[in-house]
Each structure stands twice: as structure tokens, then as C-alpha cells.
């Protein structure tokens, strides 16, 4: 394996700086965000590298659990930040976070305990990367699904209330929007499974191959990860939209859009 030097990374960073320059000249005006995000990414990953090194050395379950919770809360905050219409109060942050917790942590625990069966099961070399991959994808799915859901309910509120007036219950009047939103959250992972290995080479597998793992071993891990991501994302979206649709109605089946902001 060829170790990368700071100079190697600087050369690659030069490409991003070049892109920013072109973006400025062409008045695309994305150079600031581009450079800022690239900088932020670099800093975050360097920090992660340091943190992971400490975690791996100590292999302390409390520290690993703490790290997992930080990842969860940052993901939950991100889901919240990406919503155009947000639930008021604790629900805004809570629905996404709870759903991510339910799906990602369950799927990760299942994988560690039943599939990988490492000793100890929470060994950070497996637990943290697996959880990270699943959380990251679940986060994307839930934020797409929830955004679509609350936006659709907002746009179709008069139709929903018309159906309530005709004697539909809350579930009848919202189930088609919930289905559509679940679908839109799941489509990216379905598509990426369909084209995996042909159009795109998944990043995790690429990384393993670059670091010297035999391609076939890397492929097996990638298949595992894809299954986990798809199921974690799907169940996460379903949980989030189920809670969200309950929250949008009260005990008298009234549509309560006052529980959303914006």
C-alpha cells in the first residue's frame, strides 16, 4: 500500500481550488461554499482519524457508545436542518433522530452480533465504520422522505381536509402521501444497488481495494453494506413517516398543520 503524503493531498486539493477559480470566473458563484465545504471536510476527517485512532487503541465500550451517540445527534440535527417545513418543539429534532436510532442502531447491532460475531462485538474497527455508513445513508433517506412528506401534506392540506369531511379517517387521508414520500426516500439506494459495480464503484469497496484487500473480499463487504444500508434506510424512513403522520393529526383526527413551522 502506498502511503499518501501531505504533498499528495495538496496536489489533489489544487484541483478543487482550480474548480473554485473557474466557478468564480464563470459567475457560477459556488466558490465560497465549495472551498468552505472542502476545508470543513478536511478538518472533520482529520479529527475523525485522530478520534478513531484513540478509540481503537482504548476499545472502551463507553467511549464507543458516546461516539455513536454523537454521530446520531449530529445526523439528527442534519435531518432537521434539511427540512423546509419543520415540526415544532422537540418533535422537529426528535422524529428524525429517534427513527435513525431505531433503524441504524438495530441494523448495526444485528450485523455485529449475528453476522460478523467479532470479539468483543463492539470492537470499534467494525462498529464505528458500519454504524457510520448506515447512519449516513439513513440520514439522507429520512431527510428526503420527511421533507417530501411535510411539503406534500402542506400542499395538499385542502384535499386531506376534504377527505376528512367525507368521513375518511386520518390514516386513509394521508396514506398515499406517506407511500409516495417513502418511495422518494428509498429511490436513491434502490438505484445505487441497481447500478453498483457497473456504473459506480462504491466508495467503501474502492477504499478497501486501494488499501490492498483482495477485490473479492472487498466485494463481499460491499454487498453486506448495501443490504444493511437499504434495510436501515427503508425501515428508518417508515418509522419517521409513521411518527410524523401520527403527529400531524390530533386525537380527533384533525389535520394540525399548526404543528409545523414555515
Amino acid at each position, binding site marked *: 500500500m502506498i502511503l499518501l503524503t501531505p504533498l499528495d493531498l495538496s496536489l489533489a486539493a489544487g484541483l478543487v481550488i482550480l474548480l473554485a477559480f473557474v466557478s468564480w470566473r464563470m459567475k457560477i458563484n459556488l466558490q465560497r461554499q465549495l472551498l468552505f465545504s472542502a476545508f470543513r471536510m478536511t478538518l472533520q476527517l482529520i479529527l475523525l482519524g485522530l478520534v478513531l485512532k484513540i478509540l481503537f487503541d482504548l476499545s472502551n465500550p463507553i467511549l464507543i457508545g458516546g461516539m455513536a451517540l454523537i454521530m446520531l445527534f449530529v445526523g439528527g440535527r442534519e435531518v432537521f436542518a434539511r427540512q423546509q417545513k419543520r415540526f415544532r418543539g422537540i418533535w422537529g429534532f426528535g422524529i428524525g433522530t429517534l427513527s435513525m436510532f431505531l433503524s441504524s442502531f438495530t441494523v448495526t447491532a444485528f450485523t455485529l452480533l449475528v453476522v460478523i460475531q467479532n470479539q468483543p462485538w463492539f470492537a470499534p474497527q467494525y462498529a464505528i465504520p458500519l454504524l457510520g455508513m448506515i447512519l449516513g445513508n439513513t440520514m439522507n433517506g429520512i431527510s428526503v422522505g420527511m421533507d417530501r412528506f411535510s411539503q406534500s401534506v402542506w400542499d395538499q392540506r385542502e384535499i386531506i*381536509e*376534504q377527505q*376528512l*369531511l367525507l*368521513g*375518511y*379517517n386520518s390514516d386513509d387521508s394521508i396514506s398515499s402521501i406517506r407511500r409516495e414520500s417513502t418511495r422518494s426516500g428509498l429511490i436513491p439506494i434502490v438505484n445505487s444497488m441497481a447500478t453498483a459495480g457497473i456504473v459506480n464503484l462504491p466508495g467503501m469497496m474502492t477504499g478497501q481495494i486501494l488499501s490492498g484487500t483482495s477485490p473479492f473480499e472487498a466485494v463481499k463487504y460491499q454487498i453486506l453494506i448495501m443490504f444493511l444500508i437499504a434495510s436501515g434506510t427503508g425501515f428508518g424512513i417508515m418509522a419517521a413517516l409513521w411518527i410524523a403522520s401520527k403527529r400531524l393529526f390530533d386525537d*380527533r383526527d*384533525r389535520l*394540525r398543520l399548526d404543528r409545523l413551522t414555515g
Partner: protein
Amino acid sequence: MTGDTRNLHVITQRSSHLNGLRIRSLITREKGPYNLTVVPGNCTCITGSSGSGKSLLLRAIADLDPHQGEVFLDGKSAADFKPSAWRRSVGLLPAESRWWKDQVDDHFPTIDAELLRKVGFSLDVTGWQINRLSTGERQRLALARLLLNKPKALLLDEPTASLDPDNVVRIEGLIEDYRKTYMTPVVWISHDMEQVKRVADSHYLMTPGGLIENGSEQNSA
């Protein structure tokens, strides 16, 4: 209980204070309190300026908005109904109907040719596209869709606002027929004083502090 005594029971209940639609101290969106009783088979018209809260009152009666106070139908409180059963029972016809599928018949659980005829359509209408209907056609179809639920009370929000004179007569006749056949209490929001004279048994004016009775109309049935 024999059939006769049961009928007698129904009749006495109908004439008693407990029956029909009863609204008690209803406050919605900081407006009210509203008090109103509509006895079975009677039509109560509500008039008032735009924004005075007439439509909000109907929404609250149908329990679409959180509110204070209580609404009773035939002596039974809204809170004792399942929400969907309550809304079926107090059929609210909004000022603007909503449609969510492409074709008319997608919105009707069953097709009642007689009912469609009464709102002025032949059976062909079931295959029509919603987006090609005029506002008036939608309004008449929305009434047919509502009556299909056999509501025990009617809450009508300007039901003839966008209809031509012939259809106004047709719809007024249909509603009168329905309420007299099933002894249905009707709350009817209107801007048309001539219409109020034609259809109302009683007439209230919507004010910020509540409903003010405007004197009984001559039409009492």
C-alpha cells in the same frame, strides 16, 4: 318495545329540546361564543360580512379545527362519536370542493344515477375529467358526493354561489327535499338575501361576539 311505541318515542324526541343540531358556547379561533339550535327539518341561514367567521364556525362544528364548547347531534355529543363518524353525520359542504383523482367516478364510492340526475347530470358525468369541470359543475357534484353519505345534518357554505339561476332552483329544491324527507337540520351560509327569504326557517347574523337572531322568516315549515 312495539313498533308503535318506538315511533311515538321518535316523534316525541324529535319535538323535544334534545333533538336536531345543538351548538353550545362554541369558541373557535378566538371567535364566539356561538350558541345555536337547529331543530330537525329546519333550515337556519347565517349571513354576515366576509371574514366574520361563518366558514370557521362550520369547520368547528365539523370538528376540523380545535375549539371550545360542545356540539350535539340528536342529543349526542360530538365527543362521543368517532371523528370520522361525526364528520359523516354532519355533512359539511365547503365553499370550494376539492378533488384528488382524475375522473369524477373515482371520487364516488358508489354511483347513484338518481342522485346525479337530481343535481343535473346524466350518468355520462362519471367518466368526465375533473379538470374540465366548471366551478358550478364541481359544486353540484360535490353536493351529490356529500349526500351519498346520508348525513344527518347539513352544513352548507354558500352551496349555490357559482350556479346559474336554473341550477340554483334545482339545488335549493334538492336540499329542501332532503331535509324534509329525512328531517335533517340544515345550517346554510348565504350572501344572497333573496335566497335567505326562500329557504330559511330562521336567520342569524354573524357578529364578532356571536350569532344574533334576525327574526323568524315567513317560510317556517
